[in-house]
Each structure stands twice: as structure tokens, then as C-alpha cells.
């Protein structure tokens, strides 16, 4: 009856969480069998959940601390129990960690329909392209920054959007040029920047599913990392091998400039 239903990665979550309708389960299981990448995602999420449950199980099983034991003798006044620092102090510390690591979660969401693997592919491609070309001495770029207008115009034309190379001078990075790359069967643009110490970062732009939108996400691979985000049909990734906080600052600056550049009035 539900054989014609189209399953997506959204159903992976529904299935894991016991929210898939009874009469859809068999068809979903067949769909998984026919989609090894989705099956892998499903198994990975299930394994992560086991890790979580195992890590937390001891908390529920351990004997209650004295302050709660007192409560069980009905009538004991818990207000008398002395405390250490207020619990929100730890929450504040956690918030700082989160704010630092993900200062860019300002916007948006990854639509549940957006395939997990295609989003990660963009990040992965960006990191790979960075690692390969940032290591180049002679041919780090295809078109150098002294022909910036030509470079930006050419890449914009190939990607079919109005690109801009953000100005990262305040972050200490100067545009040295860019190149055209392939991301799957779509074109991708890479702008390369360098600071006076010779450290390089790159901005990678390519197409993605039109509906996809994310906040900042961090992806790391082989010592390089990228903060990436999806917005209005394009995926952007700022990649480099420097510490996370430094890269985040650059990514934030790029993000702000690209966002204002997209303003139709701009």
C-alpha cells in the first residue's frame, strides 16, 4: 500500500525513534537495503545512540545522592540542603564553549530532506581542494589577484551567480587569486588567501540543493578544517589548517560580506 512512497533520510530518524507507521516499516527496510549510503547513515546514528545511552545509563543506575535520599522520607525539606555553585554556572561555561565553537548558528536549518551526504560532500571537497592547492608553490592559483575583476567575473559566469571575493585584510589575509574546480558534476570556485606568515585559507563555493540552509558547521579532515554553510542554492566553505578560533573569525567575516553582497540592493 505504501510501496510507492518515497523515503528520505528524514525517515531514518522516524524509524530510529519509533515514529514510522507500522505498515511502512517493511517498505522502509527494503529501501534501506537498496540504498547502502542511507543504510550506513542509519547504522551510524543507531551506533551513536547506543554510545549515548551507554554513557548515560550509569547516572540513572547509581544510588541517589544524600540530598535526594532525604527527599524520599516524605516531608524532608530539601531547601535545607546546602549547595555548591549554582548549576547555571556550569551551563554558562557550556554556553561559552558552544558560542565559541559555533558562533555562526545564527541562521537556519538543515532541511530534513537535504541529504546528509551531499552536504558533507561540499565540506569534504572544500577541504580536499584547500589541502591540494594551498600546498602549491608555483601554481597555487589559476588566475592571480592582479586580475581580480577578470577572476571574479569569470568564476561568477561559470557558477551562474554573482560571486565576490571577500576582503579579509582586517583578518590579515590578502587575496592571491582563484581557480575553477569541479564538485561532482558541477563547477566550483576557489578563492585563495594568504597572510604575511604564508598561512593560506581558501573560500570554496559550489551549488547545492536549492532548499538547503544551514548555520555554520565545522568539518575537519586530515588536519585541515572548514566552516561551511548553505544558503540559497550555494554551499560556501572557508577552509584552512589553522586553529579553529582563528578560522572561525575569518569565516564569520566572509559570511558577513557574502551575505551583504547578496542583498539585491547591493
Amino acid at each position: 500500500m505504501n510501496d510507492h512512497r518515497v523515503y528520505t533520510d528524514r525517515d531514518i530518524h522516524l524509524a530510529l525513534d519509533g515514529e514510522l507507521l507500522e505498515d511502512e516499516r517493511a517498505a522502509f527496510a527494503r529501501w534501506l537495503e537498496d540504498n547502502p549510503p542511507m543504510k550506513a547513515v542509519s547504522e551510524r546514528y543507531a551506533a551513536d545512540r547506543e554510545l549515548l545511552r551507554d554513557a548515560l545509563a550509569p547516572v540513572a543506575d547509581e544510588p541517589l545522592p544524600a540530598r535526594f535520599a532525604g527527599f524520599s522520607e516524605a516531608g524532608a525539606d530539601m531547601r535545607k540542603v546546602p549547595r555548591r555553585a549554582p548549576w547555571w554556572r556550569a551551563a554558562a561555561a557550556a554556553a561559552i564553549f558552544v558560542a565559541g565553537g559555533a558562533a555562526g548558528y545564527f541562521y537556519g536549518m538543515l532541511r530534513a530532506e537535504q541529504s546528509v551526504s551531499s552536504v558533507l560532500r561540499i565540506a569534504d571537497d572544500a577541504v580536499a581542494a584547500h589541502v591540494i592547492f594551498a600546498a602549491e608553490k608555483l601554481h597555487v592559483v589559476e588566475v592571480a589577484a592582479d586580475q581580480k575583476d577578470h577572476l571574479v567575473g569569470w568564476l561568477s559566469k561559470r557558477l551562474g551567480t554573482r560571486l565576490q571575493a571577500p576582503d579579509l585584510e582586517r583578518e590579515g589575509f590578502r587575496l592571491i587569486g582563484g581557480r575553477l574546480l569541479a564538485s561532482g558534476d558541477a563547477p566550483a570556485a576557489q578563492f585563495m588567501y594568504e597572510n604575511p606568515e604564508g598561512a593560506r585559507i581558501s573560500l570554496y563555493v559550489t551549488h547545492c540543493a536549492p532548499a538547503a540552509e544551514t548555520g555554520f558547521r565545522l568539518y575537519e579532515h586530515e588536519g585541515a578544517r572548514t566552516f561551511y554553510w548553505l544558503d540559497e542554492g550555494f554551499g560556501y566553505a572557508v577552509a584552512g589548517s589553522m586553529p579553529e578560533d582563528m578560522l572561525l573569525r575569518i569565516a564569520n567575516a566572509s559570511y558577513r560580506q557574502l551575505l551583504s553582497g547578496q542583498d539585491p540592493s547591493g
Partner: protein
Amino acid sequence: MEEKKQAILAEIPNLRRYARALLRDPDAADDLVQDCLERALSRLDNWQTGESPRRWLFTVMHHLFIDEKRRARRRGRTLVESPAGNEDAAVAPVQLDVLASRDVLDALQGISADRRAALLLVAVEGLSYAQAATVLEIPTGTLMSRIARGREELRVLLDRARRRKSIRVVEK
């Protein structure tokens, strides 16, 4: 009344587990549980007959959690500095599945609190989407996207934790 108290009491282990996962720090988590129990006890009348004690208590705790998170955010702004960017970038990652509970709980803290709460309520505490959406006072669709994003972030964070772990092992 006594029945209600007993029902609340029976939920303490679950409340502690959820609070620990939300806050990481054991003392802070138990303080949150204590606040939650105090508030629940002082408002027993708000607990409607027939409503699951677990859902009600989680709702009470969620309110306390977001109130304090808001306060913490206002206070915390000026303190926000860079997270430790101390990963050794030079070592090739060797994937080793050697995560301890500690690492898993640390990774969990990297997910935004909204997504963390949604994921925990469903994946660990076993609430249905409908129940969790009620506790968090959000539409089911929002809950689902928080869970989806939370899971994906957790996956990435666990991979990072594994990589750090492998770096540590390699360096020995």
C-alpha cells in the same frame, strides 16, 4: 498527594540522567534536579491528573533550564573567548573506536542546547515526538529538525573526539 510524591520520586533517576546529559557537570546537574523537584512539589496542583509524571517533570525542568540559560547568556557574553584551538594539525587521523563515556558526554556539549534537549528526550529518555514536542513547547516539525541536526552534529563531534583520541594515542 502521597501518590503524587511517590510518582515524582520514581522519576528522579531519569531526571538526573537528563540533567547530567544537558549540563555535563554532575553537581550542576543535581542542582538543576533539585530545583526542578522543589518547583514541582510547590506546584503539585499544576500537575493534571492523568498526565505522565515524567512529561510533567521534564517540562518543569525544561523551563528552569531555559530560564537560566537565558540568564547565563546575558552574563556570559563578555566572557566568550575562543574555544581551545589546540588540536595538533599535523598528525594523520587514525580512526580508533576508543571513546569513553566522558568523551561522548563532552561531544554532546558541542551541540546547541535546543538540539541537545530534543535529541536526549527522544533518543535517551524514550519520549515520543509528541511528548517531547510538548515538553519543549515546540511544533513537532521543529522537534524533528532539531533531532536530525542534533544527530548529525553529534556524529561529526564524535568523529572529532575520536580523532583527538587517536592523536593522543599516537603521541604517546
